[in-house]
């Protein structure tokens, strides 16, 4: 099966600092692919490169076989790659519904002129968007909070909302940046269930950055390990767990389990 996402020898330099070096990654369709590594290893930078926020200094990124290197983030999002952020980036002053509608809007076709004169096609698109987004939110268990201000939601709900919003793009690939951040073991278990449901219900391929070993080892089909911007290992959970380089760089240290 050809890879859904391929990162080939990507290097990212910020002035003198090399954040990522010769990064190579291939995500199989339908898989949950994990990226782990110590803080500062370049994981979020990799996400930012894939989603077009940064243009890599060298290398290329291929999605469904076509190059997306250096494309604009909004084009990449519309092309089928959605993401969440390490420090939740919701539109805090807007309602929960509007947050999702903004992502859903990528599907609307009406023009600004049509909007300004309220053409029937525009009006129809709007009511459809409200319906579909409300449905989506209900699937995510946020149906009761639809008109609340996003910034007022409890932390766990905010994370779920961010994922719901990303899913409104109907992506083929979902990038999750530390979805379990700030969660205890019980919450993490629930999250694993949730991610499984996501994958099955929406048939979406996932690429996750995580620090929670439990989550990554049980949920991910393949794992890539980064350290100091370079790939130091890649394989299944068992392969990675027993790789001496990984043990030395990461798992061996008395590390964060929170």
């Amino acid at each position: 099966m050809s890879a859904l996402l391929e990162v080939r020898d990507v290097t990212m330099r910020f002035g003198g600092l090399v954040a990522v070096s010769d990064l190579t990654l291939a995500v199989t369709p339908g898989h949950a692919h994990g990226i782990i590594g110590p803080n500062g290893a370049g994981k979020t930078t990799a996400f930012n490169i894939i989603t077009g926020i940064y243009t890599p200094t060298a290398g290329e990124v291929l999605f469904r076989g076509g190059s997306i290197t250096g494309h604009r983030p909004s084009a990449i999002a519309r092309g089928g790659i959605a993401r969440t952020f390490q420090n939740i980036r919701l539109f805090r002053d807007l309602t929960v519904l509007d947050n999702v509608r903004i992502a859903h809007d990528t599907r609307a076709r009406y023009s600004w002129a049509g909007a300004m004169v309220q053409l029937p096609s525009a009006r129809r698109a709007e009511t459809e968007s409200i319906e579909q987004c409300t449905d989506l939110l209900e699937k995510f268990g946020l149906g009761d909070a639809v008109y609340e201000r996003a910034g007022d939601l409890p932390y766990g709900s905010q994370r779920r909302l961010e994922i719901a919003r990303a899913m409104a793009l109907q992506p083929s690939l979902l990038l999750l940046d530390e979805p379990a951040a700030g969660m205890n073991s019980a919450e993490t278990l629930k999250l694993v269930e949730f991610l499984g449901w996501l994958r099955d219900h929406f048939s979406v391929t996932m690429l996750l950055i995580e620090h929670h070993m439990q989550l990554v080892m049980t949920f991910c089909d393949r794992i890539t390990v980064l350290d100091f911007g370079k790939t130091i290992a890649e394989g299944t959970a068992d392969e990675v767990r027993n790789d001496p380089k990984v043990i030395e760089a990461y798992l061996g240290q008395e590390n964060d389990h929170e």
Partner: protein
Amino acid sequence: MDYFAQQAINAVQLGSIYALIALGYSMVYGVLVMINFAHGDVFMVSSFFCFLLLLVLPVPFVVALIIVMLATAILGVAIERLAYRPLRNAPRVSAIITALGCGLVIQNTTLSLSPYSQRMPELFKPVTRQFAGVTLSSLQILIIGVSVGLMIALDFFIRKTRYGMAMRAIAQDRISVPLMGVPVNQIIAMTFAIGAALGGAAGVLYASAYPVISATMGVLVGWKAFVAAVIGGIGNVRGAVLGAYVLGAVEVFTVTVLPSTYRDLVVYSLLLVILIFKPYGLLGRPAVQKV
């Protein structure tokens, strides 16, 4: 050629005055990341301070300079304390609007009290000499000399004293610096005081060179200095000086080829063009945003 040299001296004179005002804008932006729109009008008011002072008590030039610088510094600190400090953690837009509002209040209060321009009593009896085909007035030398002297003093202050270091630290990081025991409020007040004092000096010098003062000087002259600061890269002290002399040269030489009504057009178009190609000014650098 002589004409060119003559104009060059005018450009340096104008640039020096702009530099003194521009420094006030840049220093405040560097420390607080806010555009002190009121600064141009503070400069304008300082020339009125000078005017009033001389009306009441004719003092020699240096005394007038010191008194006006002091008075302007107090005004600058007062504005900061009353209008800006309460908004220090408010969204940036609020601070800009407040600054704009303060400037307009100052400008129109002055305009209401003095609807017509005033003529400055003479502070200084200039002596003119001929040097290699150019006419030099001691007033010009004085203006340029005082300005450059103050700039050098400021540079020394910023680079070599503890207070200057504190200012630079706050400009880099406003959150953790107070945690290291730096009295942020005092340093910020000091920044405003120095910036305003320099503006005050500019007011005295400007009034000496162009003895008719009016309440609209804040917009006409002060804002040009703001343009200079932005061209150089606002927040950057060296940039302010560079921008000021560039602007002085552009203004003086524009009027030699085009009618004077084109002056503002050229100045603001230059600003726009520079901002298009160098969005942060000639010497400015963008703030890095973490994603």
